[in-house]
């Protein structure tokens, strides 16, 4: 399923660790603190768990939060985008990908 992940984290190093986790799980960065991608439900839970462990740190504040929200393709189809284009094909899983020229 597709999902959005958004966060607001005060500490630079913690924020960096969380964004690295997102990339590790195969999410793509759409905005500075917004990620998007395709994950199995189980993977979404383990990502949330790993992020929780990162935030469970003395630098974490009461204000820090991370939201993971699955989105169905029907809802995704109704999206409106202003400015930088959001193309689902860029983020959907492919069978085959060519890199390098």
């Amino acid at each position, binding site marked *: 399923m597709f999902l959005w992940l958004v966060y607001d984290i005060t500490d630079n190093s913690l924020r960096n660790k969380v964004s*690295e986790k997102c*990339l*590790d*799980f*195969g*999410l793509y960065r759409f905005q500075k603190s917004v990620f998007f991608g395709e994950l199995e439900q189980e*993977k979404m839970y383990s990502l949330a768990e790993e992020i929780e462990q990162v935030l469970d740190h003395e630098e974490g504040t009461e204000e820090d939060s991370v939201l993971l929200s699955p989105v169905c393709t029907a809802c995704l189809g109704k999206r409106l985008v202003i400015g930088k284009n959001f193309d689902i094909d860029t983020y959907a*899983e492919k*069978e*085959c*990908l*060519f*890199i*390098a*020229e």
Partner: protein
Amino acid sequence: MVDEYGTYIHKKSNRFIFVDKTEKLLKKGFSADKVSQILIYTGAAVTADAIELAVKKGIDIVYLDRMGKPFARTYSCGQENSATVQRYQARAYDDGKGIFLMSSMIGAKIRNQAYFLKSLAKNRDNERLAGQAERIMSQAEKIKKRAEEWGYIEEARDSLFGIEGEASRIYFQALSNVLPEAVYSGTRTKRPPGDLFNAMLSYGYGILYTEVEKACILSGLNPYMGFLHTDLPGKPSLVLDLIEEFRQPVVDRSVLSLISKNLVTKNDLKPVEGGFYLNRAGRHKTLEAVSERLAKVINYRDFRHSFSSLVLLQARAVSKFLTGERNGYAPFVYWR
């Protein structure tokens, strides 16, 4: 699946990062959770860390030459113990199981050729093709009749090669009814391929080959110990035996459809001495089509499987038949 030229791949936590050597531009990283296979063409490098990550995640790294022929691959040193399977595999050469396996596989291949021509004949309403399909089918019937006469694996091998050769001759001749002369000369040519259709077949079989070899290894089989194809150092004869069941359903069908839709043309060829190879665009289009075909899910014996998982199921079935866990072996026949 990632196919890649002239770059190097390193690891960063759970990701493969591709770096362009010429530009030193950091390319996109890929989560190891999202990759199942990395195909590397001569001229790219992979760091040991990246290899370790791939092996841990069960990702296959295959190195291919420009023809699409795999020349090396990496897999974990911690393979499951397959000594038992291989002991039985060696015995099968003399205890009749080998003969049974290779005649099943070749029988399936011939039927797959006939079914493919049949479906083409139906779509194009072509009587001549239908007749050629029937002639090929009768070659498959011959195997059953002859099988009683075979005592040794060598006799069976000669006889099967003869039957298979005749079926393939009719098959490749028949395909000239559906392909324009500009892209297909009417016979199978290799090393180098003589036309577009042959160049695409060779390349597609290379991709399929990597899939079949992987399935053999995962099933505990020794890829170098085959039955129909004779022993030669460095010749993965079991892979060449098992690949026979999948040539038509996976490669021939996807290649023919690419050509029929004009998606690959003579512009995708690169001339070499005595023939042609696919150029980069041609390789990409062929690889993409064959990969998509391998991922395609079909109904087979009341279950839904992708072609890729069917390859693995067949390798497992070979292994179970050899060890005696199963009494018979049913080859993969695709009749749509």
